[in-house]
């Protein structure tokens, strides 16, 4: 089976700026893939290259085995949901949803029947005669999805679909999108800058930075085995420290950090100095009397309801710690001992400095 989307050494330059720089990847069919990265990393340009709204300066793009490199958007048979939804303000909801069918040559009556069915699928029955301006944000979003899905595309693109929704709606809509994607077996490419959103719904995450792919993998892979400190920090927060691996066996490692020797879980790694990422929730704060732990002083403490957040000053640097609310609480200036439940060795330790 050919990949749903294949980029071969694709570059898109705007003048001297290479928004997408020599990017190659295969995206499998039927998967929900997120393009993740900070703003300006090239993720939206990549999406627009797939859609045909941008054409590559160099390289080759294939969709389901078909070379579409120089094919205009209208000829690519992909569908896209825009960040602004881009509903046509002068058309009713029904006209919006049947638009793609009508311009594709369908009879209006048939198109409207299909459009009505799609509106019903998305729980929008009875809103067909409204104008977009008369809908709530969530409804507008679903109309935009309906308008894209009614064309039965194989590939559906989302450009930050949740950014215009309030926080409560976001979780629901993102579950809806995931459910719809799995039910219809769609290939979905989804652009976001929110790593939680990406982790929650994706089969595959492509993290981009400065026009290139920083790392590509399943959410678990990216979280547990980030390639470098940029990804470690971007995929959920991480404390990155320098240490020395003394030995690993059976997932249990012994490491030396700032003079202290600690026991922790870690995947296999050759002994020697290494850059290590420690998740905030993997740090346990214990009374200072504990042995085999890193000594520190609490500098900031905050109670957030379900969790407590601390900043702890240690010989290895300032550590950000997230502890369950029912764990013992520490005051500012309290002396503590830090123990790491799990440590992630970074593959390319100097990425940020280069």
């Amino acid at each position, binding site marked *: 089976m050919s990949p749903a989307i294949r980029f071969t050494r694709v570059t898109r330059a705007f003048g001297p700026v290479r928004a997408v720089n020599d990017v190659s990847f295969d995206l499998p069919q039927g998967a929900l893939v997120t393009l993740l990265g900070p703003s300006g990393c090239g993720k939206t340009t990549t999406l627009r290259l797939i*859609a*045909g*709204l941008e054409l590559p300066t160099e390289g080759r793009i294939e969709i389901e085995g078909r070379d579409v490199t120089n094919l*205009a958007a209208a000829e690519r048979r*992909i569908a896209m949901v825009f960040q602004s939804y*881009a509903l046509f*303000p002068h058309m009713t909801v029904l006209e919006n949803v049947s638009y793609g069918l009508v311009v594709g040559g369908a009879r209006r009556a048939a198109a409207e029947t299909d459009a009505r069915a799609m509106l019903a699928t998305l729980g929008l029955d009875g809103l067909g005669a409204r*104008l977009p301006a008369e809908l709530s944000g969530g409804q507008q979003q679903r109309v935009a999805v309906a308008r894209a899905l009614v064309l039965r595309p194989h590939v559906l693109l989302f450009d930050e679909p949740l950014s215009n929704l309030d926080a409560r709606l976001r979780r629901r809509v993102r579950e809806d999108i995931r459910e719809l994607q799995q039910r219809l077996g769609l290939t979905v490419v989804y652009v976001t800058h929110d790593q939680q959103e990406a982790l929650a719904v994706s089969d595959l995450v492509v993290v981009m930075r400065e026009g290139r792919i920083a790392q590509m993998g399943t959410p678990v892979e990216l979280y547990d085995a980030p390639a470098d400190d940029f990804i470690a920090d971007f995929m959920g927060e991480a404390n990155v420290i320098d240490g020395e691996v003394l030995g690993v066996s059976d997932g249990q490692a012994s490491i030396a950090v700032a003079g202290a020797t600690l026991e922790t879980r870690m995947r296999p790694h050759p002994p020697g100095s290494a850059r290590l990422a420690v998740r905030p929730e993997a740090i346990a704060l214990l009374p200072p009397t504990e042995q085999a732990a890193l000594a520190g002083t609490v500098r900031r403490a905050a109670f957030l309801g379900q969790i407590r957040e601390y900043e702890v000053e240690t010989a290895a640097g300032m550590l950000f710690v997230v502890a369950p609310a029912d764990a013992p609480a520490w005051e500012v200036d309290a002396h503590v001992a830090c123990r790491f439940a799990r440590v992630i060795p970074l593959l390319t330790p100097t990425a940020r400095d280069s």
Partner: protein
Amino acid sequence: MGAAAVARIALICAAVGVLLLPWYGLETLGGWPFGAAASLAVLLVQGAAPWLWPIPVLLLLALTSSGWGRIAAGVGVLAWVAVQGIAIGLPGSTAGFAASLVGADATQPALGWGALFVLAGATGLLAAGLAQRGAFGADALIAFLTLASLLLLVVFVFAPLATVLAAAAVDGGHFSLGALIARLGAGEAWSLGCIAARQGCGVVWNTLVLAVLASVLSTALGLAFALLAARGRMRAGPAFRAIAILPLITPPFVVSMALIVLFGRNGLVTVWLWEWFAIPRSRWIYGLPGILIAQVLAWTPIAFVLLEGAVRALAPSLEEAAATMGARGFTVFRTVTWKLLRPAIAAALLLGFVESLADFGNPLILGGDFDVLSTRIFFAIAGARNDPGRAGSLALLLLLATLAAFAIQTLWLGRRSFTTVTGKGDAGVAPRLPRGLGIACAAVAWPWMAFTAAVYALILIGGFVHDIGRGDMTPTWRHLLTGFAVEWQDAPIFRGSAWDSLFTTLQVAAIAAPLTAGFGILLAWLIARNRFPGRRSLEFLTMLSFAIPGTVVGVGYITAFNVPPVELTGTLLILVICLVFRSLPVGVRGGVAALAQIDRSLDEASATLGARAPATLRRVVLPLLRPAILAALAYSFVHAMTSISAVIFLVSAQHNLATVYIVGRVEAGEMALAIAYSTALIVVMLVIVLGIERVLGRAQLGRRAAIPLQAGG
């Protein structure tokens, strides 16, 4: 549209052009398919024009190729048609290098329909080839529209201008830099005789003095009106605005006619002054004073509209801030209000200056011995001695003055920001005008307003009284009947002398207005919504015709399109083309501004839903652009009916226009008929503009009009 489809249509179009249509002449069909109306294929088989062989050969090459091959064939055909057309022309005009190749006796008439189709086909091939290489967003149709627009602009905006400028440097058939310098520096243009002795000054000085005075006075008056309307104690806005519409719908020279009726040697005021105060009658109105008054009357309302908008847009909080710091009424005005208004005042000055430079009708009627560049250019072409070199050099001077004005404004405003509207709400209350200033403004504005009203009233009355020129105010239909009598003999017979020109004018305006609106909006869309190399040059060419004074355009058209390869003079077509390209910048500007309000993602959404460019344009962009289209239609219609400076060169006995006819009546001394005709013209225009608005504007009156043009609301 796909490149293959465009290429196929282009080849069919070119084949029709080669095989069927007459290669030469737009109006000859005699003897088809042989003789004068022979197609290219027939000509070549007969061996008549062997230099045309490369055209079918290149087209055959394109038949079997794609990509670069199509590009090469398209460029080759376009270039070859142009080169051979310019090199080989009427007897005696065949260029030297061409004569040595094909013989000095080789001649050919102007290009015809066949050539037009071949050119369109070649453009299509080029577009298909470029789109295949990924240019123009890989959309061959957009590529074709862009290239075709570019070609049209080059032929009908750039080429005439280049011809005028080239004519300035040609002497006796040869290029001569010396002749150019001599003409540009001629005493006719720069003489300062009027200072030292009682001679006429150089025409450049005349023009500049008039333009500076007219722009300063009309801006000052406009500012007084604007301050009173926006900040005065009385609600003066509605009255001022009603008057402000008048100059937009009157032919520019109508004011001059009213001035002659009032202040001419036998004018109403002149006679009254003579009889009551024994002030001797004179011809003072003919010359600088008359033109100046006419122009100030015409431009003041325009300056008012511009400045009133600027005064109302000032954020009052800035003035309130100054007041809280202890500044009093006039100080606030002088230090804040006035300073913030400067860009708008500069814009009004520039507009008045440029309009005055370009004005042709008023100096023609009121000039007397006082010549300005635009009239002098006209007489260099239409006068006793047809001297294109002199006309060209004067046109060059006029163009330079216009461009200098634009350049000065850009330099002066370029680096400053005067934005006071930031998008944040401003709850401030605008201060009233300081008392002294208010009284001063009122003292200037109201009398001038009364004067303006009187002038226009005179135009309305003038056509319906016996002889307004001599003060005979007996009502009569006589003049209207002279112009517009209709007899009924089974069918209406239009006996009136004005019918011909009115019908031609309406016909030209009715063809030109939709073409202008359509082409203008298309160009706006290409420029605002598509990225391609050369986009800036396309925009520049569009806007260029805005900066060129009408007289220069007229001279350019008459010199460029009088001989092969493009021969259009004397046709209705040249009037339509000229008017379309003259009003085009307004349509494009309006379209670009409206498109800026429409989120780009709407176009993109339409494209990803499978709509190709034409469908997107028709179903999404055009419905949202309705107000801009309406404005472009109305503007180009009014412009087509009121313009004179460019078209006066292009009319013929067969195709005369209303404005030119009216000016002719004035020169023949038939003032009353001219005034009656002007009134009729204004009424017709009002009816049609309001009609356009009613028919096309209705649909947007419903609730949909309230929706902001943002994606998804």
